[in-house]
């Protein structure tokens, strides 16, 4: 059991604590629970968990603040939990270093999928970054800059490729508008969501079977985009 990934859950609601603890323990994770921001920060420092699941509405401090404080010393993945209609808080937390989010109420598959992506990315940080991303019939070679749909190479413009490479390189994770704009374009363009909308549409037309119902590049309403690759 000592090799089981360690997950720290910071949430003040006992029912949520109970549910997440039961499910994750059942799946073989080691789970620690904290009921406040300060307790969470302390336990994170003591236990050095592999993943932090953090509720944004904590009694003692703002969840975004906890994110900032954690990011001062650790790169461990942070998954935030929040209620619907707080896109603003979610985006703020994601831009301050959180890796992903889940909206309450959430299904167990979603939770486990986020945890898996988070674990893969924290492994990626320690070295083995994937050079080749596969998603359905798409193959994206991040080393040679080649994108194929089935056996046919897809012609992308420079910006389109940069956009796709950033999304695919972070597949599974939600990427905020701001982070995409400042990484693919320029930090000065971080407010020009219209660039994203238009390029994303072009990209989907070239990659997706049905651009209206995308399978690979998903829109996270009000937050950003997520690239779904094969596990």
């Amino acid at each position, binding site marked *: 059991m000592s090799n089981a990934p360690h997950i720290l859950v910071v949430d003040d609601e006992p029912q949520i604590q109970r549910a997440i603890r039961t499910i994750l323990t059942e799946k073989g994770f080691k789970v620690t629970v904290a009921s406040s921001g300060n307790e969470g920060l302390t336990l994170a420092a003591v236990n050095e968990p592999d993943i932090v699941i953090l509720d944004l509405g904590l009694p003692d401090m703002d969840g975004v603040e906890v994110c900032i404080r954690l990011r001062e010393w650790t790169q461990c993945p942070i998954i935030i939990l929040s209620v*619907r209609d707080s896109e603003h808080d979610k985006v703020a937390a994601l831009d301050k270093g959180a890796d992903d989010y889940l909206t309450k109420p959430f299904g167990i598959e979603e939770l486990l999928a986020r945890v898996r992506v988070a674990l893969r990315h924290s492994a990626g940080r320690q070295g083995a970054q994937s050079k080749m991303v596969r998603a359905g019939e798409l193959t994206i070679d991040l080393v040679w800059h080649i994108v194929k749909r089935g056996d046919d190479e897809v*012609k992308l*413009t420079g910006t389109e490729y940069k956009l796709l490479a950033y999304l695919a390189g972070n597949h599974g994770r939600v990427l905020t508008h701001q982070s995409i704009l400042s990484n693919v374009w320029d930090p000065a363009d971080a407010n020009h969501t*219209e660039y994203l909308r238009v390029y994303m549409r072009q990209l989907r037309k070239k990659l997706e079977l049905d651009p209206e119902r995308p399978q690979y590049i998903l*829109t996270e309403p*009000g937050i950003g985009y997520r690239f779904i690759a094969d596990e």
Partner: protein
Amino acid sequence: MRNLSFIMRSAQYFFAFFVIAFVTAVLFVLREALDTTLVALLYLVPLGLVTAFLGFGPGIASALMTFLAFNYFFIKPYYTFAVHRPTDVVILVIFLIVAIVISQLVGRMQVSLAAATAREREATQLYELSAALAGLHDELVIAQILAKQVQAVSQGEAVEVSIVGGKPFEFNLPDASPPQRFPEWVVPIEAARGVLGTIRVWRTGPALTSSEKRLLQTFASQGAVALERARLAQAESRARVLEESDHLKSILLSSVSHELRTPLSTIKAAASSLRSNEINWDSPVRPELIAAIDDEADHLNILVGNLLDMSRIESGALKPKREWNILAEIVGSVLARMKHLTDGHRLEVDVSENLPLVPVDYVQMEQVFTNLLSNGVKYAPENTLIRVQAFVENDFVHVVVGNQGPQIPQEHLERIFDKFFRITAADRVTGTGLGLSICKGIVEAHDGRLWAENVSDGLAFNFTLPLIWDGMSPPKLPMDTETE
């Protein structure tokens, strides 16, 4: 000021002097042809005129001057001031009496004329004030008008109207900061229920006269009446709003408890039967029950979300986070998500991706489409057509979401956007009765308009969204076309 009136006074004396001198010169030329008595009579004409127009002082001066000139030039021996005959003394006395009597009469007339004019001005100003204040319900506007009128009457350098109670504030003329000293005059704005504020007047010139003070006092009481009326009206409308919201709350409670209880009953029934030993582990009912719990939990989540949205719209806290968006993408994602709901209907979507970008909140706009479409799915019979269309109309994009469901009586076309308004009985359809009012709230928060209309084959919801955002037209982007 004082200098000016001194100059005016001196000018009057000079003028009187010139008139008498001129008349003397004319009479002197005609001296041989005129009788002395006639000359004395003729002198009365300028004397009377001078006194009538210039007042007491110049009148007396003219009388003395007239007597001297008459004595010197017209009474023999000429060119001396010697008075030989008692009649000459009588003439002098008559000149003086004429001057005094006329000046007194004229003076009295002028005083009463000035008083009448002043009274008329006061009456006009008072009338203007009460006309301006009539029907006003905004305390700030009342204070502004009061300050302007006080300023006009007092001709002071600054006026401040400060209102206490309710939301206290001050209004200053001519600019926001009053002078840093005690005002020359202060009058309370007093109503039956206590002091509502004060008027302060700063004026460095002559002190306020008693009639000015009286007028300003009247202004203050006019202001008090207007303020009190405004406050009573506010109190009344507050009471009405409270009553209405109380009523709505009781409707809300009954509607919400009904709506919440339905999915809760399903969840409770399913969960408890799964827990009991009544159902075998391998029974085919198990997955069905579990799916029911999952679905109904989602349903509950949507209900709670709707309630939150509604309260946010009502409190004015719904602020769209606008960005330039592609309408086709929003519609596409909504349709993809609602696929299992719209399966029973035929869809016809005409939202071109070449429409200009629209400045909207992505999430809120998704909700508008979701609610309008689910409304159509709910009321229109299976296998009928549901249409979504969008086109540009001037500086707006016009969206039509139509269905072939039942038409709505003309008198209800507006009311279907009211909270909890239903044409069909509440137990025949599900929903909170909030969907359409949320749509309206969102569209209006985007400065657009949402309305319903009966069309030949059913019902159509129309809404408009402005394309101009903060004075900016939709951006057109330069595309890079060169490939890697």
